[in-house]
């Protein structure tokens, strides 16, 4: 049942995607760099968010949106401290001060602002509790997660993408042997030249980074650029031994294959 872990390993985008696809109801608690956040969902839709000790009551939300002046907000707090958000909302609508649409739009913006911030949290504990929902008196909304995921992801994509493009820093690089792909014809900056000067099937990418005192992100950016430009390719480092057992095994023809697989099935059943 456990749905908990660290954002390092399972990002906010991935969590939202899971909540969306599994149509989960409950509250996600995230522990960020210096405060916590709570995001609630109903059947896979975003309904509410609260960041740290920010004032997430309707008064706070409307004040932040500029719909109430700080003075008005303060007046409401002192004169109607026990009003629920729903009561307050009705009151403001009946007084002709704000429309229902304006109130909902303010809440929506408030929640989205929080949620987009969360996408930049790439480290920290998270936990999903299926039985926890926002306080009863809060006005909740209902927003599809798809667009949020797309927009939020743009903000954290770079390193992740680079890791996928270059999964293994223990591979080496070699120049591409192709007419027109001459490294001398390309405008490279100093950092790029430093990397290029070490390119050799004997040096792993990790070693090149180390020799140049570059961070993972720096080396990945540069190698990615060189790869995209078609100037270098990733190669297996020279001198890596091949295991004896890993000889080529002939592929099967289909008829023979089916009977063979059936024999395997019989045998494994009998183990």
């Amino acid at each position: 049942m456990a749905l908990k872990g660290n954002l390092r390993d399972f990002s906010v985008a991935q969590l939202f995607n899971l909540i969306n696809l599994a149509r989960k109801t409950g509250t996600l608690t995230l522990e960020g760099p210096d405060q916590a956040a709570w995001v609630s969902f109903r059947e896979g839709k975003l309904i509410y968010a609260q960041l740290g000790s920010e004032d997430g009551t309707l008064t706070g939300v409307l004040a932040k949106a500029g719909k109430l002046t700080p003075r008005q907000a303060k007046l409401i707090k002192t004169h109607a401290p026990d009003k629920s958000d729903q009561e307050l909302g009705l009151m403001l609508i009946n007084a002709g001060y704000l429309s229902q649409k304006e109130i909902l739009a303010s809440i929506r913006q408030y929640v989205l602002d929080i949620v987009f911030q969360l996408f930049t949290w790439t480290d920290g504990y998270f936990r999903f509790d299926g039985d926890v929902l926002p306080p009863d008196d809060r006005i909740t909304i209902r927003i599809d997660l798809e667009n949020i995921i797309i927009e939020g992801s743009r903000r954290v994509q770079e390193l992740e993408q680079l890791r996928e493009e270059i999964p293994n820093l223990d591979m080496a690089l070699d120049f591409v042997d192709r007419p027109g792909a001459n490294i001398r014809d390309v405008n490279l900056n100093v950092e790029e030249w430093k990397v290029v000067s070490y390119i050799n099937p004997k040096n792993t990418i990790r070693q090149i980074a180390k020799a140049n005192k570059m961070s993972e992100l720096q080396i990945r950016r540069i190698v990615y650029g060189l790869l995209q430009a078609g100037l270098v390719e990733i190669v297996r480092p020279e001198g890596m031994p091949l295991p004896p057992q890993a000889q080529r095994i002939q592929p099967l023809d289909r008829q023979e294959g089916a009977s063979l697989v059936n024999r395997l099935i019989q045998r494994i059943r009998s183990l």
Partner: protein
Amino acid sequence: MQTVKMVVTGPFAAGKTCFINSVSEIDVVSTERKISSEAERIKETTTVAMDFGRITVDDDLVLYIFGTPGQKRFDFMWEILSEGMLGFIVVVDSTRPETFREAKGILHTFRAYAPTPYVVAANKQYLPDAWTVDDLRIALKLDRNIKMLPCVATDKESVKGVLLELLYSILEEMKAG
């Protein structure tokens, strides 16, 4: 004598060596080393080159089961191990979300090496922190038609079940193809 092979892959410490050990008729020929890097010290030993298990079917058919090393820096071995395989099994430790992204990467890499059938074994399913099979399926972005099987790598029956499901998929694909 004909030999066929299957590959068991997955992230570091997912349970690949245990998985093969549970069904192999020989002691897994494993190239285990003591772990030196602090970061990876959640257990004592790790597979560095590969695991190698065997199931003899009859006088002229042998199944080899290769296990890949889980640590990233050995993944140049994968391409070699995957050559000519009948199918492969991706073992995932259901209790360690920090390995899911890697599992996804491994899955895609193997897919690229050979378009053979595969199944995913959601290992350590009965530990308290295990993610459910449904949540894991989403986390790994697994296609609906790929089997995701709850698994206990230390339990022979459980491992047999996973191997059989893979073989059924292989058979199905042969019939369809």
